[in-house]
């Protein structure tokens, strides 16, 4: 008799939990409604912030009888609302549902958009955060015999902690890259022979640069998959292609929101990310009017967590722009697809002559220009009539500086042809722009604030 972690029946499944991953929309929505009703009652009873919010809106938990009621009647909340509720009596104030006895982990947001928000995670929540990754790992063919290298410092960024919980849930091996330099991490990958690399997409590309300097042939290493979170990139075709070519691996991305969960693992067909509908519900709306957008149209993801038990987040403004597709995906999942992942941020929206320009669209187009790299910055400033955009992009190491002017004209021409908006391009020497281990700062807004 052989010893195994999973039965042969489970090992042959291409889904982690086929029953819910392929469930018809009507059934999924019926379950969402029940979970939302329970979560609203839970939040109303246990969290002063929600009780006050709903009382002010004249809303009682029993008023939510349909998903349409939920989408229409329940007020959305923003990060600043939760931060203010926490500030009533730090660290958790009026935003907390569980006492300290239950909050086993304490993280915080990066503070890239203001005051950091504290993120309490209960023991049970941590299992669900991890499970969302496991859906993604299993879906792309990662199994318990795979092993994971975490090129991550194990700080207060919850994203890769939750990935670790997901690996534990899967039952695979973990190698920690915490506390090591990039060079040491690359040497450990050669020594330990992990099959999965977990890090931000930016850092995967930085590791590839270092590997070239060290004479390491990454495609010849044991890495078969790279799995990313923390910032868009794994779903930006040019960036994904650059990572896949550099590592000789398949590249996937999970879309997570630290305070809400690792909500959407990557589609195995690389079409975007699928909302883990066991654990979250999404209402996608026009960020200016709040009205739901039609399927296939870009809107803001208002997310409701079914699994944030410590600090419930209900109809929470993510400020992430997504394109929702509800049709059954070619990968077999019925779970909502955010096509091409997160397309941008509502607070990074650039509108020029009535045209929405998404930073990830600029990234995609620049990535298709031969001679440019995925290291770029987008700077937006106020012009006389419209916002003005300049993209700073590093040239590839093999491009001569004498060719930069030609490269600039070529890139500007491609951007104008596709977006129909003039975007200035400044070619930078290789290594001129900063490198990041976690979220890269790509977007610089110099516009006057009104």
């Amino acid at each position, binding site marked *: 008799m052989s010893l195994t972690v999973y039965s042969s029946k489970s090992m042959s499944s291409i889904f982690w*939990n086929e*029953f*819910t991953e392929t*469930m018809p929309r009507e*059934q999924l929505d019926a*379950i969402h409604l*029940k*979970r939302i009703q*329970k*979560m609203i009652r*839970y939040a109303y009873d246990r969290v002063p912030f929600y009780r006050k919010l709903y009382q002010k809106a004249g809303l009682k938990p029993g008023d939510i009888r349909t998903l349409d009621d939920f989408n229409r009647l329940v007020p959305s909340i923003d990060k600043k609302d939760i931060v203010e509720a926490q500030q009533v009596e730090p660290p958790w104030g009026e935003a907390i549902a*569980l006492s300290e006895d*239950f909050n086993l982990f304490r993280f915080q947001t990066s503070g890239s958009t203001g005051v950091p928000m504290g993120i309490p995670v*209960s*023991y*049970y*929540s941590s*299992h*669900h955060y991890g*499970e969302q990754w496991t859906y993604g790992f299993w879906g792309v063919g990662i199994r318990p015999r795979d092993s994971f290298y975490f090129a991550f410092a194990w700080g207060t960024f919850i994203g890769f902690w939750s990935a670790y919980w997901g690996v534990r849930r899967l039952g695979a091996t973990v190698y920690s890259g915490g506390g090591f330099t990039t060079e040491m991490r690359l040497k450990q990958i050669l020594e330990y022979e992990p099959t999965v690399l977990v890090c931000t997409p930016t850092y995967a590309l930085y590791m590839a640069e270092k590997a070239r300097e060290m004479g390491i042939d990454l495609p010849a290493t044991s890495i078969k998959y790279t799995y990313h979170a923390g910032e868009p990139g794994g779903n930006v075709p040019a960036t994904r292609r650059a990572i896949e070519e550099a590592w000789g691996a398949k590249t996937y991305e999970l879309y997570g929101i630290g305070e809400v969960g690792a909500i959407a693992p990557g589609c195995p067909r690389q079409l975007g990310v699928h909302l883990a509908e*066991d654990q979250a519900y999404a209402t996608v709306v026009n960020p200016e009017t709040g009205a739901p957008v039609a399927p296939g149209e870009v809107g803001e993801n208002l997310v409701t967590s079914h699994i944030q*038990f410590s600090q419930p987040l209900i109809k929470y403004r993510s400020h992430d722009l997504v394109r929702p597709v509800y049709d059954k995906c070619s990968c077999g999942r019925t779970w909502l697809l955010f096509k091409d992942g997160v397309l941008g941020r509502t607070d990074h929206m650039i509108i020029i002559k009535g045209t929405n320009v998404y930073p990830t669209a600029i990234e995609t187009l620049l990535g298709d220009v031969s001679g440019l790299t995925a290291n770029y910055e987008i700077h937006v400033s106020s012009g006389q009539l419209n916002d003005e955009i300049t993209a700073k992009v590093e040239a590839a190491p093999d491009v001569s500086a004498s060719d930069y002017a030609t490269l600039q004209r070529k890139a500007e021409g491609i951007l104008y042809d596709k977006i129909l908006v003039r975007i200035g391009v400044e070619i930078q020497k290789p290594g001129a722009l900063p490198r990041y281990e976690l979220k890269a700062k790509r977007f610089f807004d110099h516009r006057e604030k009104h």
Partner: protein
Amino acid sequence: MTRGEIAERIRALRREIGALNQDPFSPAVERSLFLADMYMHMALGHLGEVEEVTPELKEES
């Protein structure tokens, strides 16, 4: 076994564990049984069942 039958068996097990933990043998055994209950709550979710929001909360008898 059907999905519904599996769910019912799990619910029965949860009731059994709840009874066992009314008078725990030790902190170690109580915690282990608690975790077993937590995973069963998770499994019910995978089966499409909607139970209490979190199994972490229980009143002391």
